[in-house]
């Protein structure tokens, strides 16, 4: 376990401030998620030199570039594939993937389910803003029902993907969800995910105020963040028994955690026992 860093957190120590002003729209939740991540990295005492941030395409994909680490902005939907290669080649690096709902669940869905199954020691942060913000606000696999987007002019009628349920089903050994309203809880969840030995999947509900919010009259950024609070249910599936869920209810916290053997550990154990025997005979 890494020792907690008790130095005061100054976000500027972890940012490439020379790239400012940043590209994010006013009210975008991605900046809050970014702050929580850097705070978590700080408290975990992870060296920036040993940190690799891998992202895909979209608003989430551009977020990684502001981190003063080894940042890799890959192709659409593929950051988990790149991260798998990098982590296998360089287990000494802390590899964190920043992806979005479209990047991770639509074009990159296959990589997600297999990353969950393999259980390689990666952390996948999926910033869910329910839309393709970078391309102008099209429908995504997580767009809520009846929401208007540029490709659902009559409202969305497609079923919504539950990313965490998918990750649990595919075998991720740590799955959690948090809202950007809870910055401290989000930071703590990220710390949990990063220090977990195995594949961690964290869904972060991040508002797209400028495109999705405006089109659906969800109010200004403060109102959107407050509505997160109105819909959330604290902590895991254990607390959900008292009343039935409403469609937009959000369960937060750690939703699943197990100590299934990590991919490289499994690989090492196999190599030691079986291959060594075969080579000696």
């Amino acid at each position, binding site marked *: 376990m890494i020792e907690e860093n008790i130095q005061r957190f100054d976000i500027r120590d972890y940012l490439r401030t020379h790239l400012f002003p940043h590209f994010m729209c006013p009210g975008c939740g991605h900046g809050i998620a970014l702050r929580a991540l850097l705070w978590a990295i700080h408290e975990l005492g992870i060296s920036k030199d040993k940190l690799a941030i891998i992202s895909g395409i979209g608003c989430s994909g551009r977020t990684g570039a502001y981190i003063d680490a*080894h940042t890799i902005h*890959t192709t659409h939907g593929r950051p988990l594939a*790149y991260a798998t290669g990098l982590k296998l080649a360089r287990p000494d690096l802390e590899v964190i993937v920043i992806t979005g709902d479209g990047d991770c669940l639509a074009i990159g869905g296959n990589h997600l389910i297999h990353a969950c199954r393999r259980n390689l020691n990666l952390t996948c942060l999926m910033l869910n803003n329910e839309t393709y913000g970078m391309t102008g606000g099209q429908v995504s696999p997580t767009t809520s029902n009846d929401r208007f987007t540029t490709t659902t002019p009559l409202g969305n009628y497609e079923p919504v993907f539950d990313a965490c349920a998918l990750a649990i089903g595919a075998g991720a050994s740590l799955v959690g969800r948090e809202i950007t309203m809870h910055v401290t809880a989000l930071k703590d969840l990220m710390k949990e995910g990063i220090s977990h030995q195995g594949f961690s999947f964290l869904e972060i509900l991040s508002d797209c105020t400028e495109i999705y919010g405006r089109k659906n009259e969800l109010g200004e950024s403060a109102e959107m963040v407050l509505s997160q609070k109105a819909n959330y249910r604290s902590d895991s599936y254990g607390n959900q028994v008292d009343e039935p869920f409403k469609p937009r209810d959000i369960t937060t916290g750690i939703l699943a955690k197990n100590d299934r053997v990590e991919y490289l550990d499994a690989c090492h154990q196999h190599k030691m026992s079986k291959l060594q025997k075969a080579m000696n005979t």
Partner: protein
Amino acid sequence: MSISPENELENLEGNHACAVAAIAAGCRFYAGYPITPSSEIAERMALELPKVDGTFIQMEDEIGSMGAVVGASIGGVKAMTATSGPGFSLKQENLGFAAATEIPCVIINVMRGGPSTGMPTRPAQGDVMQARWGTHGDHPIIVLTPCSVKEIYEQTIRAFDLSETLRVPVVVLFDETIGHLIETIDLSQTNNRKLVERKWASGPQEGFQPYAMTEDSIPPMPRPGDGYRTHITGLHHGESGFPTQDPGQVERFIQRILGKLDQHRQQVESYEAFECEDAELLVVAYGITARAAKRAVKQARAKKIKAGLFRPITLWPFPETVFCSLAKGTKAVLVPEMNAGQLNLEIERHCSDSTRVIPINRFDGEPIAPGQIFEKIQELVSK
């Protein structure tokens, strides 16, 4: 079968020779997806890599395997994947990322009949243009075409050396016939060779420009963990590595990545010229077809016909200067290919109006026989 120096002569299948060569070249990462007729490469890599502390992974798909290869190479490990037509199509986007971000990697394409699923167990040479232009946008790429098991071994090693030193993706392109051909090769020459290392960044970390113009147009690569903390992006980037839309910076970036192959053309180009000096009739062929062509040329010479064979080993960039000098003054150039006519277009581009370019094409899943080429030579001479 081992690759120890005392066993110098080995009977190897082309695909196995490719895997053994990759290990000899220092490849320590393989990500792939099963596809006929290339699967033996993955199978052999799965066997060999654990012995040298390397990593083998069978990914969820062709796209993921190409992504993992580029990811591993970013980490500083020599990495490779192998595939065939349909898989090669799927790999193109991440191959383009490697070309734009200058991440070394080697892609083996064992060609089968196409388009689409085509004829998985039959040979073809239909991916010649795809290998050059498969990914979108202007990009540098090197394509090598071996014609024997021995040459698969040599060119696979060379693919790694070129990719690592020039920071360009290298495709090794051969057909099912050679991939499944078993021939004896001598491994003694290459077993103890010095490994080629990529040029790593050193010196001050402050103000380091990962894509700075250098004399050789190849910027040294920062290794993660070495303190440079750089940015890699498929977006057009300036010397700093960060995205830019500044026309000047974009132009310099594209000019440099395309220009580096011109600058290092001598190192990249390779070919075989057989009986070309006084040739009035030239046959241009590559891969298994070149072996049939060589026999046809020998038959022609026995009949006092002045025929020659030009065999590009580096298919792209095409060794045009040497080809032009050999083709000058010839009456006809024959281009036999196991496709509907691809390289013949490149050949036409380099020939003067007085030289006729005559394609010989076959795309029925059978290799071109020497007789088919010899007949055409005789027909041309008798006219």
